[in-house]
């Protein structure tokens, strides 16, 4: 259940109070996307490094723990990391190291380093976004940024249901635990234990189906139809929101200008490491 409790913790963490937490959701969402886009199109190490330093400062302002954020980042890293790990071995270039048929090339290694840098920054941006905005705030922001109505409704309900299911599942698990059920217990036959887990999953399906029916009934009881709109609260952007996004944009402009003007002085950091 650790993963699920973690998901809940994330929302708790996201509801804390700090200058970053209090920013408008739209601003945080756009900033995260902006940071990701800028590093994804960078072909040197200078941009990712500056961006990462900037994001680490934001992390500090948001009063988030570096250690916990780093752990979260490590959890996410394997998804892209698996691809990066092969890069040094599969690209042609000057051979740096050889063991029987395995070779490491400079081009491959540089490319791997660049990918890792890009990914680290992107994930840091995501970690900051998700630990400073509750899930519903992100959904709300997407809606305000003119996401199609039907998609927004689905997303909205999905986030809400996520919590209902977590509750439902943990209720079942608790009732199983209080009767000494444990998946790794050696006292009961393996097959029987697996079957119990199967029952749990089946029960979640049945419950979700019935819950869906009941919710739909309650929705049409309140006049829901295909013409219905979702309520979006209008929120004014504050000065802090403008400051945050302008700082972000200024930073991007400045690093791009530095890169164009002084790329020779930057040495390895300014080098084009991209393979394409």
């Amino acid at each position: 259940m650790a993963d699920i409790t973690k998901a809940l913790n994330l929302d708790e963490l996201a509801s804390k109070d700090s200058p970053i937490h209090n920013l408008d959701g739209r601003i945080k969402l756009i900033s995260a996307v902006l940071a990701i886009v800028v590093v994804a199109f960078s072909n040197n190490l200078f941009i990712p490094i500056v961006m990462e330093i900037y994001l680490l400062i934001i992390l500090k302002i948001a009063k988030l723990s570096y250690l916990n954020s780093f752990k979260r980042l490590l959890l996410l890293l394997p998804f892209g990391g698996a691809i990066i790990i092969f890069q040094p071995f599969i690209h042609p270039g000057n051979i740096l190291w050889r063991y029987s048929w395995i070779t490491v090339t400079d081009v491959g290694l540089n490319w791997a380093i660049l990918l890792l840098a890009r990914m680290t920054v992107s994930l840091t941006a995501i970690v900051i976004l998700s630990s400073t905005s509750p899930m519903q705030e992100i959904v709300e922001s997407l809606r305000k940024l003119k996401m199609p109505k039907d998609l927004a409704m689905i997303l909205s309900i999905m986030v809400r249901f996520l919590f209902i299911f977590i509750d439902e599942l943990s209720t079942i698990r608790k009732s199983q635990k209080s009767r000494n059920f444990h998946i790794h217990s050696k006292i009961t036959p393996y097959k029987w234990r697996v079957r119990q887990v199967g029952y749990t999953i089946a029960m979640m399906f049945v419950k979700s189906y019935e819950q869906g029916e009941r919710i739909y009934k309650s929705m049409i009881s309140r006049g829901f139809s295909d013409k219905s709109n979702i309520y979006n609260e209008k929120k004014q952007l504050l000065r802090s929101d403008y400051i945050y996004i302008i700082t972000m944009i200024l930073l991007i402009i400045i690093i791009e200008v530095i890169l164009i003007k002084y790329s020779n002085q930057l040495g390895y950091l300014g080098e084009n490491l991209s393979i394409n």
Partner: protein
Amino acid sequence: MNKVHLSTKNLSYTYPDGTQALKNINITIYKGKKVAILGPNGAGKSTLFSHFNGLTEATSGEIEIDGKKMEYDKESLLKIRQQVGIVFQNPNDQLFAPTVKEDVAFGPMNLGLDYEEVKRRVKESLTMVGMEEYSDKTPHHLSGGQQKRVAIAGIIAMRPNIMILDEPTAGLDPEGVKKILDILNKLNEDGMSIVISSHDIEMVNEFADEIYVLNKGEILANGDKHEIFSNKELLKKAHLKAPVTTEILHGLKEKGYNINTKRIGLNEVIEELEQLNVTIKKENID
């Protein structure tokens, strides 16, 4: 004041699997009254309620609202659902928006109201149920009683003139029950007809003007609380039990006291006891 608000005529409903859930239900709800449908688990209370706003179409018989027969086309249903607000038993079935205010806004948005009006109604409804400070919270994080009140606010925001509540006090603590009843009494004072279902005898005794006893899909009796709760036979038949006050009056009667067993309100019982001329020793209780 004695205008019929909602009535059913020989309403019957059979489930697709052949189970007959409701048999010849005749109910008349007058404007501005507080009505309770009393019945044990599985009596058909929820099924009956889902007929009141056209969620379920009766197998036979009909429903009239304000003297007009209920039609089941899309336009009429939208109109009926604005007039007849239903609060479901489990708040989780009703609250699905990410925040309280968005949930309360759901109904008014469906009425096609403009933004300012929706905002005003959300605020007004939440204030009415005493939940205005929770408007940005997630329904999931609220307590059962608070969720119930938000669910009621969601219906108030649609400004219905009759409110149907399925087991509004089930699973709530005494304070929570009191808060719900206060809200309902206030709405009723403002002219709204209220229909609740329950098997909480004491609560119904305190709350309802008129009671219908439903058992196994049939109406066994109807009347005010004096008529219903003094009839112990009837209550037993419906798997219910009498309020404590009834038990006291019947107990005294059995002991030979001259007492009116129909006066079951709390204050009435006290009066009855006083007129018995029982000498109660007053001790120095300080």
